[in-house]
């Protein structure tokens, strides 16, 4: 049975991604971090964030999910949702 990794583990990996892609210290990574308050978070880095997230977690964010990642907190929520094992399909 598939089990999603704990939230804290996902958060640590995501922080590493944001630190590496955006070139920020770990202390700068907080839920409200967004393109509006981070000068290095431009459209190119956003693409790189999405690529690194896909590769690191073995998921494939769709375009809507990529667009919705408006800050770090939302990115974490998006990844956690994507990692949730699929439940029974509604008929």
């Amino acid at each position, binding site marked *: 049975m598939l089990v999603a990794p704990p939230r804290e583990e996902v958060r640590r990996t995501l922080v*590493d*991604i944001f630190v*590496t*892609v955006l070139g920020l210290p770990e202390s700068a990574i907080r839920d409200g971090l967004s393109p509006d308050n981070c000068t290095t978070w431009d*459209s*190119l880095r956003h*693409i*790189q964030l999405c*690529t*690194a997230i*896909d*590769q*690191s977690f073995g998921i494939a964010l*769709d*375009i809507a999910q*990529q667009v919705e990642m408006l800050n770090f907190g939302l990115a974490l929520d998006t990844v956690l949702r994507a990692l949730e094992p699929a439940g029974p399909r509604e008929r």
Partner: protein
Amino acid sequence: MIDPMALTAAARSAFRSELRHDARLMSYLKALKRLPEAGAARRVLFASSYSVRPLEPYLCVEAALAGWRLEPRFVEYGQWQQALIAGSGGAEPDAYVLMLHPESLLAAAGNMATHIDAAETSIAAVFRSFRARSRTPFFVLHLPPPRPLGAIGFGQGGTPRRIDAATELCHRIATLAKNLDATYVIDLSATPKVAGAWQDDKGLQASLSPVASHAAPLIAEAIARSVAPLFRPRRKILVVDLDNTLWGGVVGEVGSEGVSLGAGWPGAAYLAFQRIIRELGESGVLLALNSKNNESDARAVFETRTEMVLQWNDFAARRVNWCDKAENLASIADELSLGIESFVFADDSPVECARIRAAFPDVEVIQLSDDPTGLVEALLGCPGFDMLSVTDEDRGRTESYRSESERSALRQTTGDYRAFLRSLSLEIDITPCDGSSLERLHQLLLKTNQFHFTLERPAKTELGARANRLFSVRLRDRFGDYGIIGVLETAVRRDAVEIVNLALSCRALGRLVEETVLAFVAEIARATGVAALSARSVVGPRNQPALDFLDKAGFRPHGPVLRLPIGPDAPAYPAEAMVSRPEPVILERTC
């Protein structure tokens, strides 16, 4: 942990292994932070019909792995025509790379045949305008033809015409580029892991970036390796093992009849490997053997196994013995007068590979796979032999080294050195640089380490801009034609004729070429009416022979240059060689 400040061949190899094992973006971003910033950065301008900026980290890292430092500049996608026709502002780059996505160059609907012609005409006009403006090396990469949809439900006859059109446009772009001067096509179809599986429809739709993330490092590697030969010399020699390398099994144990060679697995894999090695040899790479075996056992395979692609005489040097392989390698370098940094060593034994890496960190070591089907891929993964184009001198190199053996034999029977030189019937030609020789002169400056006054490694465009000050030096003797073995750059200063730079291939040293070039420069001085020669030089790790020559000729420090006053005993042409050179009236034009 790799020391990023010491990117020796061994360090690059370790970096490469890491990244080939884990090619995710995060690995590249982290590798980028560990790369040294030492060495001259080469400015490459990337123009494209799609968004290629996401490739930046991959490109910078792959350039370092291929032995050069990239400083990329990106033109906004869609601006590629303007950038090529009118420049992009700022200094001219060292190279241009144009990346095209053929499918997006075609109009969305309508008559595809018309669209192909229109796209081709438009691209051809841009290429012509670019070449009229700039002589900078130009690389053209088009993404491979898109995957046919026939296999997933449209049926073989149902491939949409738009995909056929994109495929046709790919071919036409490649043809246009191949017909343009100093232009090179980066052929991704030679990278099987890219061809057919590079597309990212989501990326194309969301960010105009059609390259899938798994293909990005492969495309970056293809670009970095294609451009690299502009900026660093090619490795000159491949040294290979025998057992489980050129054939399967250990000849000392199973005999020449027992080793695996020929049709079927694994013999066919070893033959495929031999064919690639032979092609490398034909492109100018010297081949040598370094194997722990009884020589008679090894020779028996070459003599009795008709399947062998490579022959005993294809190897310019052979060490088949029980000595330490590092000692063997050093003695091959000595015998062929080659610097150890021009060596590539390929062996299936991890122990031997580790031994060579430890003894010679600048030797590129290829650890061959246990699985013989991986042999070819391992060799092709080595960027050291990449080159832009093959010159006549490259094709004749193995023959040239073979002639050298015959000369050595003659020398042993001719006691007096001058008499030996007379017996060679030397012919030395000095000619002004023309379009056909520039490629070779550039190659000489990149490759020559020992007899090289300034160790300058200019970009080909820089050198081309100074072509009117360059001379090529060619050498022939009764055993063969050495080809162009020297490049001389001169300038007439106020009170001296300056040797701005001189590089001579080590194959030609001791054949009176040095003396002849000096006499030639003295002749320019006399024709110009100045009373001294001057020379620029730098002290490098391996160019002592050049510095010794200047010292022996009488050059002495004089401000920032070395100087040699010329009087009645001015350098003269050696009597033992027949020299052909341009008339002094031509020389004055070089001032």
